[in-house]
């Protein structure tokens, strides 16, 4: 004899609850939280360096770096002028809300304006774990290939903005921008798309303007 017990609970609910708490902490201090996701080598850390070079003069920025091992990325962010915290996930393929909660405890939220979270380089797992940040930003890059939206639909569907990095390499690699954008449009109609090159600096101003705009919206919106 067995008894059936109704559950109907989202398996990610524990993470989602904590993500809501993280968001509340950020909102309380009016800190804009960005979750940067990308495959390894797309340029997450380079974009953070480029962003800090300009925005650290205008606002107080902290970076939380998720990585399987090493503090290479957090060291780069600290060298670029941010308060940086490294989270070593110890093999986990993504950051989750618990890890970010721990990092938030260590950060002086009251004296911050912008929190950039650099997720683990991975186009699959981070999409399933909300962190509580205000916006998820995906950084694609030209040498990865134009088929990525088709191959990683969950990631492309779930983000609020898309950076296309390394556009200076377009003359040298096969990358059909129309095909790429058709895939993006199918998964995430109207997605804000910011093509840029961290190497040459082309397009960076539009990205910085987007970040400034979101902070302004959070503060005055």
């Amino acid at each position: 004899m067995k008894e059936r017990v109704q559950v109907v609970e989202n398996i990610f609910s524990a993470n989602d609850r904590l993500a809501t708490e993280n968001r509340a902490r950020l909102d309380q201090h009016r800190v804009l939280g960005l979750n940067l996701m990308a495959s390894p080598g797309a340029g997450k850390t380079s974009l953070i360096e480029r962003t800090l070079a300009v925005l650290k003069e205008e606002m107080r920025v902290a970076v939380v770096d998720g990585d399987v091992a090493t503090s290479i990325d957090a060291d780069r962010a600290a060298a670029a002028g941010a308060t940086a915290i490294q989270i070593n996930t110890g093999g986990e393929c993504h950051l989750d809300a618990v890890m970010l909660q721990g990092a938030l405890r260590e950060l002086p939220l009251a004296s911050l304006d912008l929190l950039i979270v650099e997720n683990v380089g991975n186009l699959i797992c981070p999409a399933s774990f909300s962190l509580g940040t205000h916006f998820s930003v995906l950084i694609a890059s030209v040498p990865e290939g134009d088929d990525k939206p088709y191959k990683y639909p969950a990631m492309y569907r779930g983000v609020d903005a898309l950076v296309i990095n390394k556009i200076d390499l377009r003359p040298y690699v096969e990358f059909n921008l129309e095909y790429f954008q058709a895939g993006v449009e199918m998964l995430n109609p109207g997605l804000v798309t910011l093509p840029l090159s961290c190497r040459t600096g082309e397009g960076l101003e539009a990205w910085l303007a987007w970040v400034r705009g979101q902070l302004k919206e959070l503060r005055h919106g």
Partner: protein
Amino acid sequence: MHELPVTESILEIALRYAAQAEAHRITDIYIVIGQLASIVDDSVQFYWDIVSADTIAAGARLHFERTPAEMLCLSCQETYQPGEGDLACPACGSRQVKVIAGEEFRMDAIEVETLEEARARELGSAE
């Protein structure tokens, strides 16, 4: 892949509901996975045997139900189930579409035995 923390979540939810029901043992767990959710049942099953050991859920059967994706076309309002790899609207060809189902990943129910039921079963099998 993140099937290990996912499996730990499944265990945590199942144990919580079993405790509320004052269950002695969890025998079955019913999980719904949308076609678009990137979860691999076999990996969850593999971790399950490890994470559930020494709990009242040890040996419970995991039942996975895959539910199809459902899309809404934002151009012509058609709802449809997308084919493999192509999410475009079959009626008008539009790619302005929205996922309305297929990303879910939830536990619908568990089946449990209370202590009395377990005793009754053991008595029954002893006869």
